[in-house]
């Protein structure tokens, strides 16, 4: 696993949606200290996610599963029918990583993976970097194949 501190972080802008503000606070502090190139925006209110996604235009959405108002899976499903946001890569970040419904979500090629809680911020950022690099690689390969 790559150390996010020793290599360039592969994406520039990430939106984190998690109703637990302890988690979003830790992520903001860690990112500021250890991944300074990354612009990390967080919200604890999933109902504001769409508005933020349109304004912030992140490279990646990191999202919790169980949240009041709008849960992670419903939000991602809604995302897929939005013409502007339908291709946005998503990583789920949840303590319920064994939830059977998540398996269905993983069939979506834009869902890059699931990161389980509890977490070490350092490891989470390393996993995000790894999953996003793999995604970029797949995208380039697909483009080459299409051109060829």
């Amino acid at each position, binding site marked *: 696993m790559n150390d996010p501190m020793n290599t360039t972080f592969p994406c520039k802008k990430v939106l984190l949606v998690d109703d637990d503000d302890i988690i979003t606070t830790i992520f903001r*502090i860690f990112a500021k200290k250890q991944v300074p190139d990354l612009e990390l925006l967080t919200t604890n209110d999933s109902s504001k996610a769409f508005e933020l996604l349109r304004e912030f235009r992140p490279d990646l959405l990191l999202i919790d599963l169980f949240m009041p108002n709008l849960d992670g899976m419903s939000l991602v499903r809604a995302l897929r029918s939005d013409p502007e946001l339908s291709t946005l890569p998503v990583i789920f970040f949840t303590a319920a990583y064994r939830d059977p419904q998540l398996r269905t979500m993983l069939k979506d090629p834009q869902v890059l993976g699931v990161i389980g809680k509890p977490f070490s911020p350092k490891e989470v950022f390393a996993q995000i970097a790894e999953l996003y690099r793999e995604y970029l690689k797949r995208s380039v390969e697909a483009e080459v194949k299409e051109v060829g």
Partner: protein
Amino acid sequence: MVEKSSSAGTQSIALLLTDFLPAERAPRADVLADHHHLLSFDLVHTLFNTVPSVVLILNPQRQIIFANRALKGILGLTDLVEILGSRPGEALCCVHAKAAPGGCGTTPWCTMCGAGKALAAGLGGKAEVQECRLATHDGRIALDLRVSVSPVELEQRPYLLMVLEDLSAEKRRAVLERIFFHDLLNTVGGVKGYAELLDLADETERELFTGRLNELADKLIEEINVQRELSAAERGELTLSLEPLDPAEVVASVLRSYERLRVARGKHLHFDRTDKVGLVAGDRTLLQRVFGNMVKNALEAVPPGATVRAGAEQVEHEVRFFVTNPGVLPREVELQLFKRSFSTKGEGRGLGTYSMRLLGEHYLGGRVGYHNGSEGSVTFELTLPVWEGVTLRDGQRLEHGFSAASSIV
């Protein structure tokens, strides 16, 4: 209500326009005739009595004409004749079964009931499997059931075969896993996260992060205690320490503890003080837990900047603890409140309103309710009787020499 004429073959009562399924019932004589008809099929009762799940055979008016031994065991009946002619929700003491004159299947709550939906499908000639959350009148039993309904015909008479499987243990495990472990893992995640940040912290941050670690440790203890208390309450093993309590003091202490929490950040908690409020007899921890749950739910339901109002007032011989927040409870949420595995946070996510009712009614002996206010607000309330009629006058302090706390189960 609109009166209609009754159809042939059913009880000659004025029919009621209901919120869901028809209210009409077959006369007692027809129920008993159907019952004896079914008993003439040896295979039916021999076979069904060996099944551990509850098996019911209903007539087209959804009245029980046969029930197997499993139901007898659940209800503690000596003779099944006692429930012949009643509907499933009535036999199982569903809290909503008497909410409309037509009984089980006819109330607004029945439109959201899995058993009601399965029966509607069965009456339409289709087999159906649904899940149903049933709470009993006394609030003590909460059953999660899998309900299967199939239309059947025996010697050209139409019946509905209904099988009820108790999923309570399964659901309880699922809820425990999804809420307790999920929340616990989130909190432990926070501990791990701040512990890691300590390595990167300067002097000022170190103090801040240590404080957060302490808060998270307290939260962990609280989460474990809540779960332990709820499990004990469900087993009927919760022991109370009863004492006279000043409602204003209870409200103030709950509000003080919630003001400090993250869920209240950017939100306003307002104490609606009233002068004359009597004492209530209760267990301080449990009362604070029920009232605290109401405050927490209200805070979670509102956006930053909103105000949650809470207080206690005396209405005749009762004290009403209330928590009001701006918003409206959607009808589908309203109809499922207080059920064990229902949560506005998602399927199998919350025990908040369920535990409010279990602890508030069964253990504290009060009433737990809610209402949507006309001005776009939601109020949850717990009403408890005033203790022995003692009333605190303006500024009067409690000076009676109350005996040591007593315990009840």
